[in-house]
């Protein structure tokens, strides 16, 4: 194992830092943390670098949370035919700290598309053991009945009335108290985000972790990766000192957006690196009931449909904060406040589509990112249909009114005919408000080095000893929420890298 402290944080950054290890992992989100844990479990000397801090005290509100713990202060948007807001966390644990902890294995249909269109075949259960291992480690289990809350229960009742397949969501948590506050970080420590599960275990196995460590460039020499360099951020938020980590292998897990940006900044600009930026465009509807729902009670996301997965549509129950959802209320001040006062009778349900018809790119202009993404016409139609399906659920659940947020429709629709009115609306991309926190695909795996960034093992084509493990690997949507698939792939690739490092060490 390597020398020095297991954990270095911004308060420790008082001088330049140089480290050497077997494998350096860049980024500590679900993918990087699992890769680091797998490598450390195999006895490999790992250094895990994270640009953000270890957040131990959470902010009480959404604005301060976004501004302090997300890249670009939480106001990141892509440009293209629409402006798509997207959130990427910047802290130890990455997205897992603020996400809803939904864990779901990819659909068989999605894996078949990965095989048929990209030559990446996981259809015969090759990743099953990786999924099992990750689910065990992360404590994945269904939301307990006592923390479902009315909003989630009503969702299941509505699906049942419509005859649609739906189920209680499985999440990585232990002792969830149903505070519905996942977007603010879990104050009771029930969510098993990576800072609580996997990173501590990796450290106990000898992994070294550095937070406030921003990687700026890959060290490349004669077609091989030799490590990384960057800068350290101290407690005052200043980039005060230099960072250099040399390694036998480098694993990139900075997320779908930051990983290709880092590769391109380091001179790796071949096709496949930074193209194919994908999202699951999402929507949500508000439904107003006569009775109390108290939407802030219950697990953040406790129920979802599986009925439409093969059509590329998933519906879910959701809560975040009124500050996020009240944008759906009429702008006019008096009506707005009347609606605010109705929050106890409102439920929020969301939906997203697989985004197969929408694509973008990651480019960098100096130190800044340029993100583009175009919302394809087929996806616009599919998201409109998602709104209609959500409205059907609200009607089936007995809602009085539905707030669809679609331009061209009134802000408030009667639940009786909302599905039909939503379906009948003539909409273009800019009429449907959408956002997405499921981002993937910008360094895709594929059998063809001319179009893909990596092979099936995350090994970057054309550069030895360089791997990608984050959601950028997905050549297309996994058909479900992305985190668990990323963790299983990282587990598998972590094992491969450990084997390769070990066999290189044995080689004469």
């Amino acid at each position, binding site marked *: 194992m390597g020398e020095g402290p297991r954990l270095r944080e911004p308060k420790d950054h008082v001088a330049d830092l140089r480290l050497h290890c077997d494998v350096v992992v860049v980024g500590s989100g679900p993918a990087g943390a699992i890769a680091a844990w797998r490598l450390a479990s195999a006895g490999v000397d790992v250094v895990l670098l994270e640009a953000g801090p270890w957040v131990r005290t959470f902010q009480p509100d*959404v*604005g301060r949370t976004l501004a302090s713990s997300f890249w670009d*202060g939480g106001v990141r948007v892509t440009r293209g035919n629409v402006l798509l807001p997207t959130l990427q966390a910047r802290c130890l644990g990455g997205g897992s700290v603020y996400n809803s902890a939904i864990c779901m294995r990819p659909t068989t249909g999605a894996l078949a598309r990965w095989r048929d269109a990209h030559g990446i075949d996981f259809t015969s259960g090759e990743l099953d053991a990786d999924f099992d291992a990750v689910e065990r480690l992360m404590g994945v289990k269904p939301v307990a009945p006592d923390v479902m809350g009315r909003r989630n229960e009503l969702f299941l009742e509505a699906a049942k009335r419509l005859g649609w397949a739906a189920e209680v969501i499985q999440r990585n948590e232990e002792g969830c108290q149903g505070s519905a*506050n996942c977007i603010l970080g879990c104050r009771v420590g029930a969510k098993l985000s990576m800072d609580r599960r996997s990173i501590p275990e990796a450290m106990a196995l000898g992994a070294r972790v550095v937070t406030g460590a921003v990687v700026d460039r890959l060290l490349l020499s004669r077609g091989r990766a030799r490590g990384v360099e960057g800068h350290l951020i101290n407690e005052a938020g200043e980039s005060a000192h230099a960072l250099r980590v040399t390694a036998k292998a480098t694993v990139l897990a900075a997320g779908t957006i930051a990983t290709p940006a880092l590769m391109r900044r380091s001179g790796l600009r071949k096709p496949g690196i930074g193209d194919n930026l994908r999202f699951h465009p999402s929507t949500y509807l508000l439904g107003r009931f006569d009775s109390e729902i108290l939407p802030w009670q219950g697990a953040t996301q406790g129920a979802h449909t599986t009925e439409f997965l093969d059509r590329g549509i998933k519906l879910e129950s959701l809560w975040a904060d009124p500050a*996020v959802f009240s944008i759906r209320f009429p702008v006019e001040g*008096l009506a707005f*406040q*009347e609606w605010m*006062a109705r929050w106890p009778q409102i439920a929020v349900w969301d939906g997203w589509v697989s985004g197969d018809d929408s694509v973008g790119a990651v480019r960098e202009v100096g130190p800044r990112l340029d993100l583009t993404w175009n919302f394809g016409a087929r996806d616009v139609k599919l998201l409109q249909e998602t709104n209609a399906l959500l409205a059907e659920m609200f009607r089936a659940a007995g809602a009085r009114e539905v707030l669809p947020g679609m331009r061209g429709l009134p802000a408030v629709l009667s639940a009786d005919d909302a599905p039909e009115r939503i379906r009948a609306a003539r909409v273009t991309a800019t009429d449907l408000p959408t956002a997405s926190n499921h981002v993937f695909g910008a360094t895709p795996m594929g059998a063809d080095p001319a179009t893909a960034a990596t092979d099936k093992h995350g090994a970057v084509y054309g550069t030895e000893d360089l791997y990608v493990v984050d959601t950028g690997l997905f050549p297309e949507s996994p058909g479900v929420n992305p985190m668990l698939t990323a963790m299983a792939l990282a587990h598998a690739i972590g094992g491969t890298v450990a084997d390769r490092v070990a066999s290189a060490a044995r080689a004469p």
Partner: protein
Amino acid sequence: MPPGLGDTERAVASTIATWLYPPAGALGVSGAADRVSVYVDDYAARLPTASRLQFRALLHAMDRGFGPWAGRPTARLTEARPKDVAAYLTAWAKAPTYTQRMLFEGLRTVLMMAYASDPEVRARCGIPWLGDT
């Protein structure tokens, strides 16, 4: 933390919040309350530099755009009559141009975060507030 907003930007935020959240509303809490602009200031201070500059530029654009809109080039949003403020901001909210609508929506989101995070507003809506826990 670096400073958040300048005086003009704060005043613009306050003017817009007062229109969005009038004192006569069902909740009886006005967007003019100091704590809304204090929140927005604090929020801006936490943003990374590039995002903060964009946010400040947006507030200036709202202010500077008022004069030409009103046909009086030197007129300021912060000094306008409530009726004109309402008409001007409605024009932004319902603008035919997508980007303009989205800019207004972005600003409205920040002001909404300020308003909806106010403990008094939350208490009146029956929404729990984590600030004191």
